[in-house]
């Protein structure tokens, strides 16, 4: 097990280097002026050149990359051009907000998805299966930003039960787990949970149906085992896959949905990316993408390790 973990960790290093190179390249290849947030359109050529030198954009791409990655390894992702604030602090603040939202959304999505998936798989081909399946199909099909807007119209504009935007009455910096704050979390978390809910439900439905058809289940029934105990065996067999899917969904949600966070003005990584893209704030953009990509890599590593712990066959292969 230790050797497996060590091998996976060592493999992660070249992946992280590759990810950082791709982040840098993509951001610099996109058209547009990186100084647009500090340069108005009528800036003279001399002023543009002056700022380009001051911000280091006159250096060659390899020089810029090496300078950036050298600082990034030490935890310094540079300074946002638009705000002059350290990128690391901006990203970490946004990550914590998205992490909170993503965990709640994943929790809701996993609970509901597991419920629908297990129910649909256990009672397959019945009306319960059809209802659960329909709900999960709606979950993956409906554009989630549209759903978010609809929820805002209903619950905020018309019923006025829940706030439309923001991460708390005073912003995210004074977040506490009380009702005044949590009601800001409900609509964005519900909106974000529908896709993971749908994916987990559909995955589990197929998996449960497959497991139930296996011979060992027939054997367990023949032994006289009760349905509840058989169900626990099914859960244990479905767990590695369910966890892998949940891990991937959490990783996807940790990337922050640009659309949902913009609709709800939730100050997470999606909102930050939106800002960085429109302001062409390259240090912020490449720093945010790098952190999110690295999270994904680390999360995949953790999921692989947990999976192999749950299912020894994965290690041997």
């Amino acid at each position, binding site marked *: 097990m230790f050797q497996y973990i060590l091998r996976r960790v060592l493999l992660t290093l070249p992946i992280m280097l590759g990810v950082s190179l791709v982040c840098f390249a993509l951001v610099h290849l996109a*058209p*547009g*002026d990186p*100084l*647009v*947030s*500090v*340069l*108005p*359109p*009528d*800036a*003279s*050529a001399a*002023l*543009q050149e*002056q*700022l380009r030198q*001051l*911000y280091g954009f006159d250096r060659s791409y390899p020089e810029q990359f090496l300078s950036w990655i050298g600082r990034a390894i030490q935890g310094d992702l540079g*300074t946002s*051009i*638009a*705000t*002059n*604030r350290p990128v690391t602090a*901006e990203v970490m*603040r*946004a990550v914590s907000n998205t992490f909170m939202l993503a965990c709640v959304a994943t929790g809701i999505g996993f609970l509901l998805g597991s419920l629908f998936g297990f129910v649909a798989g256990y009672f397959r081909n019945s009306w319960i299966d059809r209802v659960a399946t329909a709900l999960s199909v709606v979950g993956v099909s409906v554009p989630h930003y549209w759903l978010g*807007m609809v929820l*805002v*119209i209903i619950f*905020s*504009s018309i019923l*006025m039960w829940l*706030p*439309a*935007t*923001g*991460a708390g009455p*005073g*912003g*995210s*910096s004074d977040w506490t787990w009380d009702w005044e704050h949590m009601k800001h979390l409900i609509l964005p978390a519900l909106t974000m949970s529908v896709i993971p809910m749908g994916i987990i439900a559909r995955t589990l439905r197929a998996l449960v149906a497959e497991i139930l058809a296996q011979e060992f289940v027939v054997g367990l029934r023949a032994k006289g085992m009760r349905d509840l105990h058989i169900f626990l065996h099914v859960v244990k067999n479905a767990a590695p896959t369910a966890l892998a899917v949940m891990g991937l969904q959490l990783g996807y949600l940790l990337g922050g949905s640009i659309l949902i966070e*913009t*609709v*709800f*003005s939730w*100050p997470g990584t999606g*909102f*930050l990316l*939106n*800002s960085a893209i*429109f*302001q*062409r704030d390259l240090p912020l953009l490449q720093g945010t993408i790098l952190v999110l990509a690295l999270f994904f890599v680390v999360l995949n590593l953790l999921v692989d390790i947990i999976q192999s712990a749950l299912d020894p066959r994965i290690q041997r292969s």
Partner: protein
Amino acid sequence: MFNTFAKKSWLALGVSTFVFGLASAQAQEKVLRIAMTAADIPRTLGQPDQGFEGNRFTGIPMYDALTHWDLSKADAASVLIPGLASSWAVDAKDKTKWVFKLRSGVKFHDGSSFNADAVVWNVQKVLDKSAAHFDPSQIGVTTSRMPTLRSARKIDDLTVELTTSEPDSFLPLNLTNLFMASPAHWNAKLKAVPASVTDPAERAKQAWAAFAADASGSGPFKMARFVPRERLELVANKAYWDPARTPKLDRVVLVPMPEANARTAALLSGQVDWIEAPAPDAVAQIKQRGFTVYTNAQPHVWPWQLSFAEGSPWLDKRVRHAANLCVDREGLQKLLGGMMAIPKGTVPPGHPWWGNPKFDIKYDVAAARKLMADAGFSQGKPLKVKIQISASGSGQMQPLPMNEFVQQSLKQCYFDVDFDVIEWNTLFTNWRKGAKDPSANGANATNVSFAAMDPFFAMVRFTSSKTVPPTSNNWGYFVNKEFDDLIGAARTTFDDKGRDAALAKLHARIVEEAPFVWIAHDVGPRAMSAKVKGVVQPRSWFIDIAPMSIQ
């Protein structure tokens, strides 16, 4: 025992009365909550970003400049008035030197005094690379708005001399963009930077970052709380130097909400009291729910800027006039739910720079067709034109439906309009490069809206031979000696009335030569709760929060 009980009862009564009173007082704090279109809080260190929305919310409320725009009237053009300078005059012998007399008794929010040293310091922050407090991040949004300013010199504590590179009568107008930050407060931030940071530029950068989080200007509001990217809270500066602008509000909360539907929902749900730029299709619902939608003619021009490069289809003045006569602006206004004003030029009739041009911009299809026929075009032989436009963008209003409407409108006058739709920041970047650059992608007009607050922004940068790319925004290479002479005359006329008369001549000729197709003027819509009182929406990009109150 009874005495102890009585004492405790009186104490309890006293405490609860105090707490209740305190809660009531807090509950009665007059708070105005505003949702901006910006995706982030505009910079708070004195020179805001996010365009003029930044000046509107973190410039004018928190800071003063030497000169101000008059934002007190809704029915007249917004003109220049004294700010921190009580008067100014150009040196009769050397017209590159201006003497500004400063207002006495003005204090920054940190308690330090405003004086000539502060003016010199603030000029140096964007112009003097050797100054300890020079900030590269502020020069872009400042120096291009005062392109001829070179230096400042203290004459005495309340007198300062500003020097320009050439005689420039526009300087007082340009100075509305230079906000005065507190040098003393900045120096305190510099002292607080750890000694381990030895590089002077890095120390200055960190000092500015600290200043931005705890700013000090001299404006009617001062910073109280700042949550990056989420929230800025300003409280009233009750010691403000202008009694007419001492705030009636206790607190203003600014929240960035870039998505129009989110802003509308926030207003309707009572989360905020004021939203900028409501979603156009929600305006009827907003009004029906009892909110007020304010609009006014704004110096914000939405045109096609035409190319005068060789081979451009717009070189024939008849074609340019025909296009201006063939746009159904009233129909477009209906499409936008009334959210636009119909232009007659860059500035409206009645403006000091209007000038009474001989070419009357209106909707006259017959006249347009005749001009096109004279120019050799017809239904069977239309004129092909290509316009570079954006899909969205700050100040671009609703670019796709608006451009498509104009395309259909011009079709009846033998124009075959094609579009090159690109991303907004790219369009903005291309604007600097010009019509002859490959980035124009074959387009012979570009659709970039612009502010027309001051003469350079409104007219000079589009019609001067000195402002062709890459210098400035004469994207279409409209070069004409007559216009250079008119600009020179306006720039070197130093009495206000004479300068306005010269600018009026320039404007009249611009309309007559039509280097633009003038399509719409924005009206700066904003929706507010009926609880907000004292609102005056001037004919400006800006609005004054100080006189407002909330019930």
